[in-house]
């Protein structure tokens, strides 16, 4: 199954090393594949360097595309992670 959802990066430092690492770590728990899309550019969501080089400071609109059997719960957890600003501050 393929799911697509829009997110807005809300934590102050944007998708920096710690936040990107959390996304990769989350992805390791699922069979589905995550892709992140910004301004038409799509990168592999299991690669920390690809996420970093996508360059997403605070306020960036990012599209997440998840392909695979467990895409639904993966998307939900990803949404939680971004909504909770990766656990940084309030």
């Amino acid at each position, binding site marked *: 199954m393929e799911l697509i959802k829009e997110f807005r990066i809300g934590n*102050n*430092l*944007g998708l920096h090393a710690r936040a990107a690492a959390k996304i990769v770590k989350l992805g390791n728990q699922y069979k589905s594949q995550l892709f992140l899309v910004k301004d038409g550019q799509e990168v592999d969501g299991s690669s*920390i360097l690809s996420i970093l080089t996508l*360059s997403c*400071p605070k306020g960036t609109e990012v599209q997440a595309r998840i392909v695979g059997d467990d895409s639904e719960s993966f998307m939900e957890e990803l949404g939680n992670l971004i909504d909770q600003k990766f656990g940084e501050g309030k």
Partner: protein
Amino acid sequence: MKACKSDSEMKLKGIAVSSGIIIGKAYLVDRSKVKITYQYLVSQEQVSKEVKRLEDAIRTTREQLITIKNHMPENIKTHSFIIESHLMILKDSMFADASIQRILNESINSEWAVQKSLEEIREIFKQIDDEYIRNRIEDVENVAERVLRNLSGEDQKDLAGIDQRVIVVAHDLAPADTTELNLEKVIGFITDGGGRTSHTGIMAQALKLPAVVALETATDLIKNGDILIVDGNTGEVIINPLEGTIAGYKKRQIQQEKFKSSIARTSHLPAETLDGYRIAIKANIEFLEEVESAREYGGEAIGLYRTEVLYIKSKTLPTEEELFEDYRQVAEIIAPDPVTIRTLDTGGDKIAAVAMETDDEMNPALGLRAIRFCLKEPEIFKTQLRSILRASAYGKVQIMFPMISGLQEVLDARAILEQARQELDTRQIAYDHDIKVGIMIEIPSAVSMAEVLARHVDFFSIGTNDLIQYALAIDRINEHVAHIYEPFHPAISRMIQQVVAAARKAGINVSICGEMAGDPLCIPILLGLGLDELSMNARSIPFIKKIIREISMKDARLDFENILKLSTAKEIRGYIINRMKALIPELEGKGYLYS
């Protein structure tokens, strides 16, 4: 950066990333870049052997990083993500797979392949706009360096083996390296490389190791066993200091320790002078996340909440809901104490969603920004005002307009505020109907008009940074004139005095929210001026409170009268320094009393 030689001691200046003064022996760690050899491989057999060699080196690196992560001291466990992200970089396809592919496709040796992958990643990182994310290339470099060292068969263990009390001197230290330092023995470190946002600096702070980075030439100039003084507050490093210098720093070191513990102890007490006069101490913040630390440092309220971030970082204009949500949280956390929210204080050129063409502005500081921009874009302004009003139902909120140059702007801004209120009334949304509305006094014309303005607003907040810039006609960013930027210029004290007098006459509150409020030397003047509150960066609060608690209002008033008789900034600064030396001698050790 710069090295200057005086007698036999030598001074270097770098970037201080972790505070504290240390004096000790230098211990050079060879963390200079591994020399790379470049080779073409001639047979298929050689190629497969080379792939295995790189795979082995990557595996060894992985094992080392995992060991480091598992052995991190308890107090820095929260930073283990740094090592985790290094592990992820190590196995990232852009790094690992790409390097192995290079060996296979180009028949080159491992070192060359790793180097090429690193180069390619570096090129991609260079394109990143955001400075913080762009600097993460340092982490990739750290990982590549460790792989290269493993390929070369060089010993990685030399850091853990240090058994004397020393200051580590290295070309560069990866965050993983800092965690390997023997903390019983190493008292701090300095490096040629690195910068303000290096992860190595974060580790140093967590480990409470004083550290200075970006010294550029430290490893060239320092020899093993040299005596070093490292000042993690100023970024100064002194090589082979003279006896007198050591004695001076030792004194400073002791005073600083004493001082640190004494100001931390009193930061929660009110800022009350010896003769019982109280002044409110508030914090300036920029992010919602800072509210709690403002409290921790002893801030009694939020005197200035800057609201530009939500506009600048986003590609679209923030919605009323988004702004409301942010302001509401600040109001709730700081309640029952107030937060003063300053409306948008920037120009259209900084807001991506507006993308206004303002390149033709010769002087952006004098251009279309702050209240001028808001009055030209009333819808954007009204959206923000509605959000602030709505937040006022959840705590104590005050509105502040920036960059007011005269009464007309106040009237126009108030008219739009009135529209915003009516819109909320129509929507039957609650807000504080008695919300206080104030203005920043930062343009000289507003100082002249202060008496008139005071009759139309509930409070004044003096923004000394801009006031000094506009009054003295100095662009602080322009290095040729930045040195003339001078809070002690007698004109500035007189202008503040005029504003305070106008506020007193109208019976409204007056505060200062510029850097002067957090400058220890300015405190006697500001007290003598009779301000109601000072708002500053949270980190300055404990120190400023301490100073206020050690002087009397009677002295401050007298000092201020004396200062008014002086006619140059130099005289005023000299007077203040002498007074402070007499009043609070321990300040001298803090390095504050040097003209």
